[in-house]
Every structure is written in C-alpha cells, then in structure tokens.
C-alpha cells in the first residue's frame, strides 16, 4: 500500500486535484443535501468559520482533508440531511459536517487514479472554535472556497509528501 506511485507524486498530475476536490464536494452537496454549491465571484471573508471537520488520509497519499464552515451553515447542513429544524440542531451538526468531510474525502480519492485502494481514510473529527493551531507535516496545501446557501465553505487538502 505504501509503495511509491509516480502518478500521485508528480506535480503535473496534481494540477487537476483542486478542481477534482471542488467537484467531489459539489457532488456530495448535490446528492446528499439536494443543494448545489456555488463558486463565488469574489472570495468571501473567511470569518466565523468555527466548525472544522477533518479526515486523515494515509497510504500512498498522506495528509488531512478539512471542511470549514460557520456553526449556522453546519446547522443548515444537518437540517438538510436529516429534515430537522436548523434551530434545534445540536450534536447532529457535528456528525453531519464530519460525515460530509468523510464523503468528500472518499469521493475525491475515488476520482484520482490509483488512490482508491492505495489510501485509507480515518474516521472524521470535528473541532468547534476558531482559535486553534493545527500542526501537521505538510509539504503542499490546496484549498478552495464554495458557497453553501450564500455562506462560505472552505475545503482544504494538506498533503504530506
């Protein structure tokens, strides 16, 4: 599983990863939340994004995939996934955001040739709060911002070569 995969390590092959990440997240929102994500015309301010969901990747690709959003957006996601009132969403919103991150990670790796079997995912972890530092052995980082019901959702992939 950890044998080098030239197709994954070349910078050229990684050029397509960012749009693939974006597509992976758009598909998850369309299929599971019945809500298309919009590409912002201008990058929105990343303020108040105090819910962070993380899934670790290990194997031929090592790193972390994170999804960040506001608590309001997380509650709206839980509402759409479960058919509950967003106002009453409690722990469900952590579970919802965690599961979204997990599905985005899985969908992404299944779209990259050679990663499906060569990369494992951790169970998701969710951090609430914005004042934290996360230190990982990152060599490369890519991120994209999409709009969910007009609110920013930031998707990041931090890769450890």
């Amino acid at each position: 599983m950890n044998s080098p995969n030239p197709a994954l390590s070349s910078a050229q092959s990684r050029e397509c990863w960012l749009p693939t990440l974006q597509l992976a997240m758009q598909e998850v929102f369309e299929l599971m939340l019945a809500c298309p994500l919009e590409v912002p015309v201008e990058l929105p301010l990343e303020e108040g994004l105090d819910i962070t969901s993380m899934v670790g990747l290990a194997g031929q690709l090592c790193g972390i995939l994170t999804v960040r959003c506001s608590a309001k957006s997380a509650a709206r996601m839980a509402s759409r996934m479960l058919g509950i009132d967003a106002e009453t969403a409690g722990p469900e919103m952590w579970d919802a955001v965690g599961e979204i991150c997990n599905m985005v990670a899985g969908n992404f790796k299944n779209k990259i040739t050679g990663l499906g079997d060569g990369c494992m995912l951790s169970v998701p972890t969710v951090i609430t709060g914005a004042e934290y530092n996360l230190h990982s052995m990152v060599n490369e980082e890519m991120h994209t911002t999409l709009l969910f019901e007009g609110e920013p959702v930031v998707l990041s992939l931090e890769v450890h070569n």
Partner: protein
Amino acid sequence: MGSSVNGPEVHCPTVHAEREGCAGEVAKEGRLKWTPGLPIKTSGERRGCDSMGPGRPERIGGNMNNICALIVDDSSVMRKIVERSLRQAGLSIAQVLEAGNGAEALAAVQKNKVDLILCDINMPVMDGLEFVKQLSGVESAKGIPVVMITTEGSEGHVVQALSAGARGYIRKPFTPDQVKEHVLPVLEAK
C-alpha cells in the same frame, strides 16, 4: 502530526452519534473518551421483526413487505439518511434497528429477526468487512442479504466486500434511487 488545541472543543462525530453528554469529547491530552458496548437503538414501528413474532415479513409482488432492516454506521446522521432512502425506495419497513459498529450489529442479528442489513465499512471497534465475515458464522443470520454503503468505493474494496459475503455495494454519496436499485434485487433474490 500533532495538534495544539487551545480553547476550542474537539469532537468525534462518531461518538457523539451514540452518546449524549460527555462522550465524544477529546481530552486536552488528545485521548478520546470512548465507551464501547453501546446499546442498540431502534426506531420505527415495532412489529413484525421480533424473533418468532407474529408479523413475519411477507412477499408481495416479489418485494418484501414489513421488513426489518438493520443499519450499521458509526454516524447517526448517515443511519437516518439510509433509513429515509429505504422508505423513499418504496420499501415497507416495519422496524429499523441501528448499530454503530460491527460488534453491535452482530449482537443485533442474534437477538432479532432481520431481513436486510445495510453496512458501512470504516467503523470503530469492528469494521464492516470483519462484520460480514463474522456474520457468515452466525447460524440465525444465514441468508440475510448485506449491502455495503461506504465511501470506500474502489474496485478492491468492492471485491473484498463481495468476497466476504456482501450482496451489494453502494458508494457514498448516493441517491435514494441508487439505494432502490441495489436493495430491491437482493431482497427479491432472498
């Protein structure tokens, strides 16, 4: 990888799905307060699914009616979505049993008359592939169709799951139509 968490709370949604209150929070040292052996939860109407109960599932037009479905996933949100998808697929479901991992699911099939199992792969305690393997050794579970529902969508994982005894495989994200497409044939073939 190390993380310095200063102020914010860290949650494992998996655990929050099962326990209310303190479970699921990670202590500052990074240790998860994990409590295994959580009870099986049930939802839906309670008829037709208890062992030797009067309302055993009936075949109507090739489909199962009043079935008892066991949904195995460490995410309570995903279990609810799968349940909703089954209902949207037009299945008449008498009872839904839920389990947060393979070990809980094994206990559930030994205590209940289950007609269909939908199972995630990546779960704590006992993963879905191990569950399917161990299920084959449970006499009372012979013939219960298992459909995997997972983010692990590679060909290798599909082969592993089918070799272990699963009858179907659905990749997340999925639509209710995909659930219908994969679940109805295995129920009809049961």
